[in-house]
């Protein structure tokens, strides 16, 4: 009888202990972060767009391309809408943000080939997963520039960019185009639909001055309009890769709870 009571007491105590531990267990809320970015591309066949998302859970369905049922992009009131098939999801890198660990995943999407310019000023990504979960994330701004023929007016020899000095936000401040000879006068330069930038020319180098805006910016096409109405486009180029995006992006970060 005594040993029976002993076993029962032990079982009750262990069960109580397990319940107490479970109740006090810190449940980490599943979250995804997006950072507002200016997505600007030239409309070409088989063009690719790369959208980074940051998950605090590695095995979440959002990190698995097989979990996706549908994905499309729109503005807030969905008066502008565009579909892009998801081709792949690649793992990026690890970052920390507000004492949490976030894994960057890159959604690789196929850009549509349009024969006209397309602009979404407030870009949202809408995802439907095969488990019927639906999410909408704010991404920033989207521009797709169409140009049938680009004329090689400027024989550029070098292309690179830089961020604002002593600023760590992953946003280009200047783009440098080195060239050998300039035969035509430049009228204006754009880095997206209706996105004109100021520029200076000095010593065989054109420096584009990109204005401050609340978007990350690292990969843009450059559209050069000449005074004689010729147009030249320097295709998309990834000018910079940052590994501390969350730490430096502050108000540009959007946080969403996940199922």
């Amino acid at each position, binding site marked *: 009888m005594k040993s029976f009571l002993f076993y029962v007491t032990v079982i009750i105590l262990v069960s109580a202990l397990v319940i107490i531990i479970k109740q006090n267990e810190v449940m980490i809320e599943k979250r995804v972060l997006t950072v507002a970015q200016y997505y600007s591309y030239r409309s070409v066949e088989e063009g690719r767009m790369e959208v980074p998302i940051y998950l605090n859970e590695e095995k979440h369905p959002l990190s698995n391309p097989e979990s996706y049922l549908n994905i499309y992009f729109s503005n807030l009131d969905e008066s502008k809408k565009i579909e892009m098939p998801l081709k792949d999801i690649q793992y990026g890198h690890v970052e920390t943000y507000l004492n949490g660990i976030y894994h960057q995943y890159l959604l690789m999407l196929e850009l549509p080939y349009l024969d006209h310019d397309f602009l979404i000023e407030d870009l949202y990504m809408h995802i439907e997963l095969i488990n019927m979960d639906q999410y909408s994330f704010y991404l920033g701004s989207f521009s797709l520039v169409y140009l049938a023929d680009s004329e090689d007016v400027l024989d550029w020899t070098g*292309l690179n960019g830089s*961020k604002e000095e002593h600023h760590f936000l992953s946003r280009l401040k200047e783009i440098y185009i080195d060239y050998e000879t300039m035969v035509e006068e430049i009228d204006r330069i754009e880095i997206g639909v209706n996105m004109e930038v100021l520029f200076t020319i000095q010593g065989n180098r054109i420096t584009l001055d990109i204005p401050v805006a609340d978007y990350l910016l690292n990969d843009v096409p450059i559209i050069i309009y000449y005074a004689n109405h010729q147009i030249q486009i320097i295709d998309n180029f990834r000018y910079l890769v940052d590994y501390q995006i969350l730490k430096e992006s502050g108000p540009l970060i959007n946080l969403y709870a996940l199922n």
Partner: protein
Amino acid sequence: MMKKLIFTCLLFGFLFAYPNVVSADTGYQSYESITLTEGKLLENYTKDEYKDYYSHVDSRKFLGWRIYKVNTNIKLSYISETLFSYYNDGYTPIEYTYKLDRKVTSKLGLSASGTIGVDFKNDRKVFTFDLEAQLKLTAEYTVSSEDKESIEIKLDVDPGTQVDLYIYGEGKITNGVAARYVFWIRANRGGFEVFIVTTQYQRLEKVRI
């Protein structure tokens, strides 16, 4: 009985204390240039400096690492290798696509000297004997074994033109010396260095040859 115990302790001590094979640098040391805002790279430590720094880790302990950090989170700029170079020796322009998928990220570089080693574990560079964990580096030095790099560039290359892609950027470095002890016997001693990239820039050049 006492003799046997001492013999066993000594035997185990020698087994654990046997120096590890030196395997020094990884990636970043082959960069064209690295410019630090202050301090110096591990490869530039002098014998006298080593002697001075070792004095901070030479007091023996029962088990584990003694660490002395000489430079912590020093900002730097670097110019890396030419990532690719392509020459169109034909007579017509070529639409060239360059695609690189690196299994291992170049974001983190480790270097060691003396009898501290650098090893690969799950496609990830690590110091031997868990030195990294003992260094208590900040989270920005974290690299997952899944970290990889993907670069894709499409461009038209005219005849007689060479295209080069260069990498340069900014990062941070932490280095110093460390010694590992097993039963008060020094098993490893040397320098360590951790290099992390914070921003990587790319420059494309076209040269008519």
